[in-house]
């Protein structure tokens, strides 16, 4: 039985790739860009913490959790919108 892939399926996959790329870019910036410029950013204060230390110890972790939460929500809705969600059989 061959799979019938329609234009709608291609669109679904394309949307998935787009959101993946956007979230990955955020992940990259909070981890590597801030890490790379840590020395230069060290004078900026965030509620008492120097910004790079705060990001490394807490801020980027919170952003990671949010990225994953948002991805799960976005994709689980996309599944339903594009009729590829599991569960009807």
């Amino acid at each position: 039985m061959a799979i019938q892939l329609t234009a709608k399926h291609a669109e679904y996959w394309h949307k998935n790739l787009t959101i993946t790329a956007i979230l990955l870019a955020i992940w990259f910036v909070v981890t590597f860009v801030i890490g790379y410029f840590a020395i230069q950013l060290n004078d900026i204060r965030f509620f008492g913490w120097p910004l790079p230390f705060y990001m490394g110890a807490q801020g980027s972790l919170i952003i990671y959790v949010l990225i994953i939460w948002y991805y799960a929500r976005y994709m689980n809705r996309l599944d339903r919108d594009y009729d590829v969600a599991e569960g009807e059989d």
Partner: protein
Amino acid sequence: MATSSQAAFNRQLKRYYSFYTGGFVAFVILLAIAESLGLPRVWIGYIFLFATIGLYAGIGIMSRTADIAEYYVAGRRVPALFNGMATGADWMSAASFIGMAGGLYLQGYDGLAFIMGWTGGYVLVALFLAPYLRKFGQFTIPDFLGARYGGNIPRLIGVFAAILCSSTYVVAQIYGVGLITSRFTGVEFGVGVFLGLAGILVCSFLGGMRAVTWTQVAQYIILIIAYMIPVVALSMKFTGVPIPQLVYGTVLEKLDKRTVELQKDAKELEVRGIFKDRAAKLNEQVKGLPASFEEQKAAVAKKLEELKATNAPAGQIKAAEKAVADFPKSVDEARTKWTAAARADTGRAAAPFIHSEPFVGATEQVRDNKRKNFLALIFCLMVGTAALPHILMRYYTTPSVDEARKSVFWSLFFIFLLYFTAPALAVLVKFEVYQNLVGTKFTDLPAWVASWQKVDPSLLRITDVNGDGIVQLAEIVIGQDIIVLATPEIAGLPYVISGLVAAGGLAAALSTADGLLLTIANALSHDVYYKMIDPHASTQRRVTISKILLLGVALVAAYVTSLKPGDILFLVGAAFSLAASAFFPALVLGVFWKRATKWGAVAGMVVGLGITMYYMYTRYPFFGVNAPLWWDIQPISSGLWGVPLGIVTIIVVSLLTPQPSKELQELVEHVRYPHLRGDIDTRAT
């Protein structure tokens, strides 16, 4: 499975684990009451050890199974929330629980590479792997490689890599089990190893993934309670606020100011000067070898004679006797011993560094070097996270693709709770030491200092180097494990909480070891035996073979551990780089690039893993080759070479070989969509 029964199952689980948590808290309170009535400390250690191991064994017995899907993937009905907790326990090892806060204490900002690396990797798991692996829905990671690329060669390389990285990692875990049991009950290290192993085995042996999953949930609850109670108490003591993660910024500011004071303090400079002189003298002696060997030997003996002649205090004579007894036996031994001692003294002669400052170094080049290695380490830990088979395997156990996605969120959330607490704990304890311990008279050291010095001098040692009777920072030698272990006492909590912390560390080590042993045994029994040797084996036989192999693997691992090989950090670091370069490129390209071919994957895995192993072997001091570093990258980040090279190799070789068959391309389409009408079904039963 119908959704209504899944919902009922979910409710039932929530009820069970709520009761369990309440029961556990009541148990700790009862022990606390018993302690105040005079229960001796050794007993508390034993009760915690046997009660928790007994509990895990009990869950193992209740979850025993001979059903193949239950044994390998817990029947694929673990709800997202619970799979998240199980993954959290699976993930957080003895190193995370006991060592990490201490590592942060010693390394300051640079240590945050571990915090970010071991959490940010879950972003990669969520975006690139978990939902697709769940849709594919078989039993092991080599399963996916075998199906996606076709044929036994990719599967076999996967088996090899899974066993390689899981076994280096599992040895580190069993080591942790041995250390904790021996420290808190006084049994010998080797006995501790096998005692812990018994707990692991009863659980996974009887019930495979199903038992491991439900035990890991129980272990997560214990370890998070054990980690949080002391930190909250400490925060109350210092800041008056029970949520240290919100307020330790101000403590950090004070700590940094205090460090600047200590950098310039006259007494501190005096002590550091003494260490500098000692190091210089030792270096002189090393240079003067072999002549200096006899000179020193005579000098040590002469000193003992003099002391005896003048009727010096017994303590001094004892020390001099020890110096004679410990004197190196040969010139070579003297060279290694003195060089090491000189290096240690040079380290102690260094000024304390500002905790929050990134990449501390004297020159621009040193700082740049540290930054490079910091970012490289984060990269390897993150990609390694998204490639360790024992973690990826957990996402086979959820009921559906959308639950798999949610479950990654819960996993990271539960891991995050501990990981954003550790840097706070490190800062609080460091402030206590810098502000309060430094400047105390040696005659009234706090109780926790005295007791830990006695337990293990490698964890904490304070000696009055300049003889002024007051503690200077440079006189304190602190081992990283003590930060978590001593926190209950620093916060003024009863000994029961120390026992609880040990039980938490044990839970962390056991749960990770469980997951790893299962991964190794399943790779052998499912991928090698069933898929390659005897595809017609009955399910009964497959489960039996799995159990026998599990037992064998566990015994071998425990035996290797009891020989105490290498250091823990080396083993853990190695596992991440190995997993990253072997699996990540082939798994991710397998889903996102239909054109990736069998030979591309084979070549990419071999080249990636090969280069990583080569770099480790030739650069880790452990192996004694010590070739010059490439681009100053430390061997712990070997994956920095293996991962990109693996990706490039897969792409180049894939483009040079004919494109994959239609069936394989359809498989890729199949894993990309949670549900397609008229689709194939790859789920294994």
